[in-house]
C-alpha cells in the first residue's frame, strides 16, 4: 500500500470535511441537484409510489423496463455532459487572449485550470461511457428480444445486474462532483499524468472505479445479448432473416465482449500503480507509459465502433420503414457490419500516431484505419439505394436517420484525413480531431434520437409529438453545425485541445460562434423536454396500434403497443425476412393465435440491486481508501452471489386464460383510442407478482 499525500485515518480513509469542495459553481450544482432530488423523492412519497417503484422498476428483470431504465440513466447523464460542454464553451469564449477578464478567482474566464480540466474529463467520460453506451445498450435491450421473437433476454437476472453496475458507475461520477474532485487527466486518463505523483487527489480514483465497475456491467450485458441472439430466436428466424438492427447488435456486442476486458486490465494496472506502487505505467523503474495508451485504445477504438454500429443498425431499420421499401443489399449490410467490427481490432494505434513509432508500424495502422472506410462507404450507398424508388416520408425518426447519414459523410471525410499520418501529425492533438470525433458521435446521437422516437410508441403505446420533435431536430442540427464547423476551422489555425486559456486572440470569433451554437443546443434541449411533456400529456390522442408507423417491417411491430410483459402471447413462427410485410401480403396481418398457453416468466429479484449497492460501497471505499468498507462490501458481493445460487425457483407461470385476457384488453385499447388516465402510459407494465 502506498503512502498518500494528506491525512488518512483508519475509519474514514482520506475522507474529511475538507473533501467538500468550497466553490460557488459546485455549490450551485449541488443545490440544483438537491432540489431536483428532493422534488422527485417527495413526489414519489406523496403519490405513494414507493411500492410501485420497488415492484415494477427497481427489482424488475423485464428486458423492456431494464432497457428504459438504461435509457433514462443515459439521458440524465447526457444532460450532465451537456452542462459540462456548455461550461467549457463559455470558458473558452471568455478566456481568449491575454487581455480577457477573469472572474471567480480565475485569471481568465470563470474557471480555474484545475476545475476546467475536470470538466472536460468528466464530459468525455460521461458522454462516451455513461450516456452513449447506456442508451445504446438500453435500446438493444428493448428491441432485440422483440425483433427475434423472444420472451426476454437469455439471462434476465444478469441483465438487471448489468444495469445496476452501470448506475453505480454513474453514481460515483455524480458523487465526485460534491465530494472530492474528478480526474483532470482527460477521459482517456493519460499516463503518467494519472499516476499518484502527478494526480495525488482522489479524482483519478473516482474516474477509474466508475469506469471499471460500469464496464463489468457492459461486458456481462454483451455476453447476455450474444447468447440471446444465438439461442432465443423464434422458430423460423434463420440467420438470413435476422433483422438488420439485431445483426448490428450482435456485431457490436462481440466488440464489447472482447474489448471491455482489456479496458479492465488497463485500469486495473493503473490502479495497482496508484494503490500498491507498482511500475506498469510510470516513466521510471522499468514502467512503460505508452503501454497504457496501447491497452486503453485497444479497448477505446473498438468502443468507437461499439457505439456507432447500433446507430448504423437503427438507420438501417428507420430508412426502409419510412421509405416503405425493403433495405437495399441486406447481405452486404451484414457483411459490412462484421467487417467494421473485425477491422476495429487492428486500428487502435492511430490514437497515438505521434508517439514516434516506426513508419512501418504507422503505415500498417494507417491503412487498417482506412480499410474501415470501405464497409462504411458501402453502408452509405446502400442507404441511398434504399431511398431510391421508395416513398420517403419525413417523420421525425427519418429526419434523424438522414441527418446521421450526412454527418457520417462529413465525419468520413475528416476521418480519412486523420487516418493519414502526415496529415494526422499536423492536427493530432488539435480541436480538428475534437470536431471530427464529435461529428462521428453525432452520427451516434442522431441514430439514438431516431431510434428512441422510432421505438418509443412500441414501448409506451403512444407517439412522441411530431411538431416539437422536428423543432428539436432543426435546432439540434443548427447547433451542431454552429459548434463544429468553427471548431474544424480553429483546428486549421493550430488550436490545440483541452485549453482553458487561449493564447491566440484571433480565435475569439470562432469561440463566439461556438457559444451561439451551444445556445442553439440549449434551445433544442428545451424542445426535447417539452416534446416529452406534451406527448405524455396528450398521450390519449396519440395512441397507436401494434404497427405504430403503419409501415413497420419486422417482428416487433406485430405485438401490441405498449408491449405486454411477455412480449408475444404465442411465439410467432417466422416465414420471411420482413415478416410483417410478408404477413400483410399473404393477408395474415390480423390473424391471431387460435389458442393461448401457459407462459413461464422469470421472477423479479432484488439481488441485482443489492449487488449494485455493495458495488457502490466498494467503489466509494476504494476511492477514499477506506479499507474496512472495501473488505466488507466485497465480501457482501461474494456472499450475495453464493446465496442467490441456492435459490431453487426463479420462474413463475402465467396462466393461459390470463394471457388471453391481457391480449383482449390491449387489442381494444389499440383500436379505439380513448383516455385511459388510470393506467397511463406506463400501465402497460403489468405488475408481476412474485418477488424473490
Amino acid at each position, binding site marked *: 500500500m502506498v503512502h498518500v499525500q494528506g491525512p488518512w485515518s483508519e475509519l474514514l480513509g482520506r475522507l474529511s470535511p475538507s473533501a467538500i469542495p468550497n466553490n460557488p459553481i459546485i455549490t450551485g450544482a449541488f443545490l440544483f441537484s438537491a432540489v431536483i432530488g428532493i422534488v422527485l423523492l417527495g413526489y414519489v412519497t406523496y403519490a405513494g409510489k414507493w411500492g410501485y417503484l420497488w415492484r415494477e422498476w427497481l427489482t424488475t428483470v423485464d428486458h423492456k423496463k431494464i432497457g428504459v431504465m438504461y435509457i433514462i440513466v443515459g439521458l440524465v447523464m447526457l444532460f450532465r455532459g451537456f452542462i459540462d460542454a456548455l461550461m467549457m464553451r463559455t470558458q473558452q469564449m471568455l478566456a481568449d487572449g491575454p487581455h480577457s477578464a477573469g472572474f471567480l478567482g480565475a485569471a481568465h474566464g470563470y474557471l480555474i485550470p484545475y476545475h476546467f480540466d475536470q470538466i472536460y474529463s468528466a464530459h468525455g467520460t460521461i458522454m462516451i461511457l455513461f450516456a452513449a453506451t447506456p442508451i445504446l445498450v438500453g435500446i438493444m435491450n428493448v428491441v432485440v428480444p422483440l425483433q427475434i421473437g423472444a420472451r426476454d433476454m437469455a439471462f434476465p437476472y444478469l441483465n438487471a445486474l448489468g444495469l445496476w453496475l452501470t448506475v453505480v458507475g454513474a453514481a460515483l461520477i455524480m458523487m465526485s462532483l460534491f465530494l472530492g474532485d474528478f480526474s483532470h487527466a482527460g477521459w482517456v486518463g493519460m499516463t503518467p499524468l494519472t499516476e499518484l505523483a502527478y494526480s*495525488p487527489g482522489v479524482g483519478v480514483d473516482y474516474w477509474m472505479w466508475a469506469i471499471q465497475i460500469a464496464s463489468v456491467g457492459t461486458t456481462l450485458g454483451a455476453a447476455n445479448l450474444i447468447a440471446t441472439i444465438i439461442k432465443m430466436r423464434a422458430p423460423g428466424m434463420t440467420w438470413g432473416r435476422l433483422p438488420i438492427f439485431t445483426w448490428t447488435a450482435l456485431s457490436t456486442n462481440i466488440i464489447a465482449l472482447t474489448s471491455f476486458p482489456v479496458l479492465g486490465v488497463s485500469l486495473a494496472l493503473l490502479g495497482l500503480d496508484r494503490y500498491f506502487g507498482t511500475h506498469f505505467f510510470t516513466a521510471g523503474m522499468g514502467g512503460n507509459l505508452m503501454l497504457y495508451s496501447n491497452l486503453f485504445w485497444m479497448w477505446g477504438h473498438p468502443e468507437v465502433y461499439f457505439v456507432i454500429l447500433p446507430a448504423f443498425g437503427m438507420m438501417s431499420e428507420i430508412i426502409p420503414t419510412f421509405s416503405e*421499401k425493403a433495405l437495399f443489399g441486406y447481405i452486404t449490410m451484414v457483411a459490412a457490419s462484421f467487417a467494421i467490427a473485425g477491422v476495429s481490432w487492428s486500428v487502435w494505434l492511430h490514437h497515438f500516431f505521434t508517439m514516434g513509432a516506426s513508419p512501418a508500424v504507422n503505415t500498417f495502422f494507417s491503412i487498417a484505419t482506412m480499410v474501415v472506410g470501405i464497409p462504411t462507404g458501402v453502408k452509405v450507398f446502400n442507404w441511398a439505394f434504399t431511398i431510391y424508388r421508395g*416513398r420517403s416520408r419525413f417523420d421525425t425518426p427519418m429526419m434523424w436517420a438522414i441527418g446521421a447519414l450526412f454527418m457520417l459523410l462529413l465525419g468520413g471525410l475528416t476521418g480519412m484525413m486523420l487516418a493519414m499520418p*502526415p496529415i494526422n501529425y499536423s492536427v493530432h492533438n488539435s480541436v480538428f480531431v475534437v470536431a471530427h470525433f464529435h461529428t462521428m458521435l453525432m452520427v451516434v446521437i442522431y441514430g439514438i434520437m431516431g431510434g428512441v422516437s422510432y421505438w418509443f410508441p412500441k414501448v409506451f403505446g403512444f407517439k412522441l409529438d411530431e411538431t416539437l420533435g422536428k423543432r428539436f431536430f432543426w435546432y439540434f442540427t443548427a447547433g451542431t453545425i454552429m459548434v463544429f464547423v468553427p471548431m474544424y476551422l480553429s483546428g486549421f489555425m493550430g488550436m490545440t485541445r483541452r485549453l482553458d486559456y487561449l493564447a491566440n486572440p484571433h480565435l475569439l470569433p470562432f469561440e463566439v460562434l461556438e457559444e451561439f451554437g451551444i445556445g442553439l443546443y440549449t434551445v433544442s434541449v428545451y424542445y426535447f423536454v417539452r416534446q416529452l411533456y406534451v406527448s405524455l400529456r396528450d398521450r390519449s390522442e396519440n395512441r397507436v396500434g401494434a404497427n405504430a408507423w403503419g409501415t413497420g417491417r419486422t417482428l416487433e411491430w406485430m405485438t401490441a403497443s405498449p408491449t405486454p410483459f411477455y412480449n408475444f402471447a404465442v411465439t410467432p413462427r417466422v416465414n420471411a425476412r420482413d415478416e410483417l410485410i410478408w404477413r400483410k401480403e399473404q393477408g395474415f396481418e390480423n390473424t391471431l393465435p387460435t389458442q393461448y398457453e401457459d407462459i413461464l416468466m422469470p421472477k423479479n429479484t432484488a439481488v441485482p440491486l443489492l449487488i449494485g449497492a455493495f458495488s457502490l460501497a466498494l467503489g466509494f471505499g476504494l476511492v477514499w481508501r477506506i479499507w474496512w468498507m472495501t473488505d466488507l462490501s466485497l465480501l457482501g458481493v461474494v456472499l450475495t452471489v453464493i446465496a442467490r445460487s441456492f435459490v431453487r425457483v426463479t420462474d413463475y407461470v402465467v396462466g393461459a386464460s390470463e394471457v388471453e385476457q391481457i391480449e383482449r384488453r390491449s387489442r381494444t385499447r389499440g383500436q379505439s383510442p380513448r383516455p385511459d388516465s388510470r393506467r397511463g402510459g406506463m400501465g402497460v407494465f403489468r405488475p408481476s407478482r412474485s418477488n424473490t
Partner: protein
Amino acid sequence: MVAKRLRLLARYITLIPGLFLAGCSSQGLSRQFVLFRPAGPLANVDFRFTILDVAVMLGIIVPTTIMTIVFLLRYRKTNTKAVYEPKWSHSNFIEFVVWTIPILTVAMLGYYSYQGTFAVDPYNPRLINHSVGGKKAPRPLDVDVITTDWQWLFIYPKQHIATANELVIPVGTPVHFHLTSATVVNDFYIPKLAGMIDIMPGMRTKQVLVADKVGLYQGYSANFSGGGFSWMGFKTKVVGQNTFQTWAKHIAKSPQTLNYAGFNAFAKPYKNVDGKTDQFSHVSAGLFDRVIKAVTMGKVYKTPLPTYGKA
C-alpha cells in the same frame, strides 16, 4: 411567443457568418489559418497530403451527397409520379460498384499514406536532406528539448547554452531535436514548421525541421500535461544564420548557468502565465541524458495535493 422570438433570433444568427467573413478579410484573419501556410518542408508535405486527401475524398463525397439529396427529393412520398418498387432490394451491378469505389479509393489513399509517412519520418530525414541538398547544405544544428511542469527548456549542446520558453533557430538549416520530458507527456508542435511529436519522460523522441523563412512562429505543447498546460507555448524565432551565431555568443555570456542541480530547481511546477523566458550559459554537458537517466531511475517532480474545489 417564445417560438416567435426564437425564430427572429435564428434569422439574426444566419446573418452572423456573413459579418464574420467580412471581418476575416479586413483583419487579415485568413492569415491565421497557419496549417495552410507552411513555412518548412515538413509542414509543406503535411499540407500537400491534406489537399490530396481532401480532393480524393470530395470526389466521392460530393456526388454521394448530391445523389442522396436527389433520391430524397425525387422519391418523396408526395411525389406520386416517381417510380415505386417496394421489393427492389438487390442488384449485383450496384453492389459491385459500391464495393469497388471505396476499395479503389482506400487503395489509392493507402499508397499515399505509405509515401507520406516515410517522407516525414524524422529518423530518416530524406525530405530534409533533399530540400536543402541543392544549396550548400549548412551543418545541422542540434537542440535538446526538455519539458517540465510547465516550461520548455531548449539546450544547444554544442554551444553549451540553453533557453527557456523560447526557441531560436537559423533559417535554412536542418535542426535536429532530441526531446524528453522530466515529468509527464507533452507534444512538440510548431504548426507552420512541423507536425506533432510526443515528448515522453524516460524516453527520447526525435524531430527534424528546416525553416524556409525568417520570422516568428508560435510553438505549442499539444498534449495535455496539467494545470499550466494552456500557458505552455513558446515563441520560435527563425533568424538569419549570422544573426544566430551572434545571438548564441550573446547568450554564452549570460550570467545564469545551468547544471543538473539548477535544472532540478528549474523543473519545479511553474505556470508560465507571464510568458517569461530565460537564458543560460555554461550548460553542463550531457544534461539531457542525465535527466532521462534520472527519470528512468525513478526521479519524479511531484504535483502537490490540490484543495478540493480550488486549483
